[in-house]
């Protein structure tokens, strides 16, 4: 166990937790188009996000032992566990984003630190700094084509790929966990901007916001 100072950002106190989009829902609303909608937007709020940095070999061993998923060594890859609830995305040759259900991040961090011991690594809990938006529906790709500079054609962006790219001038991680869904990991401070951009860009497809 390292001597790094850690703390659980989720407390038992009765302070209400709000998603980064709470303000946006109040201010911009959440259009519910119903069955005519060709694209659905859903925020998966308050998940556990960890940035794990270090050497791939040591981290892979620890992550496989703790999470049961192997660390993606190839650039722009995204791996998930069988349930699809836990994922690891390659961000750079020594940096990965681990997303787990909310509340699991601190136990996971602690167990990873125990496993890694004195290895050279860094784990940062960034759960409060970013949120995950999910796009589904037949027009999701069309919507992304208007918005991101990255080529999202299925031949170039297969399932299991994840890239960091520019989404409407904001830096965003774009991921494709399965055939139907696209995921956007956006900064908390950009969440309202991205949300309103998606409402505007999705208006022609009758964007439907699920809360």
């Amino acid at each position, binding site marked *: 166990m390292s001597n790094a100072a850690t703390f659980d950002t989720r407390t038992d106190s009765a302070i209400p937790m709000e998603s980064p989009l709470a303000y946006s829902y109040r201010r911009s609303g959440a259009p519910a188009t119903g069955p005519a909608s060709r694209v659905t937007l859903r925020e998966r709020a308050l998940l556990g996000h960890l940035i794990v940095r270090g050497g791939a070999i040591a981290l892979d061993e620890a992550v496989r032992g703790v999470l049961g998923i192997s660390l993606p060594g190839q*650039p*722009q890859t995204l791996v998930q566990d069988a349930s699809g609830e836990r994922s690891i995305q390659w*961000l*750079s*040759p020594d*940096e990965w984003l681990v997303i787990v259900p909310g509340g699991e991040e601190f136990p996971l961090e602690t167990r990873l630190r125990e496993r890694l011991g004195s290895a050279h690594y860094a784990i940062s809990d960034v759960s409060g700094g970013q949120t995950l938006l999910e796009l589904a529906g037949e027009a999701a790709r069309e919507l992304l084509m208007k918005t991101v*500079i*990255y080529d999202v054609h299925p031949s170039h962006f297969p399932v299991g790929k994840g*890239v*960091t*790219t*520019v989404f409407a001038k904001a*830096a965003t991680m774009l991921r494709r966990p399965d055939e139907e869904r696209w995921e956007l990991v956006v900064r908390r401070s950009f969440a309202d901007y991205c949300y309103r951009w998606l409402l505007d860009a999705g208006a022609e497809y009758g964007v439907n916001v699920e809360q």
Partner: protein
Amino acid sequence: MFYIYCPYCGEHREEEEFRPKGQAHIERPAEPEACSDEEWGNYLFFRNNPRGVHHEMWVHAVGCRKFFNVTRHTVSYEILETYKMGEQPSITADSQSLPREVAAVSHQEGVWA
């Protein structure tokens, strides 16, 4: 627009994701105290501005956020190669056999990395 090959991401990306960071392969003097003012001044302030092949540092700012080197032709803007930090370029001004006017004309329609 450039379409730049990031040696760390292993694929071509849009220029918008990158930032240029000036001349590459600048070495900090091992013993700054032993430098003359001129040597230190040259290290701090003076950069090459060649007409032709130039080695530059770029950063994949929106992406893997790694620095890497780019060999670029300053007349045609053609990116001749990209390589990781710590590596040496395979294309240099001396190894370029094409006269620079020819290189400039032959790639006016676009750039490739």
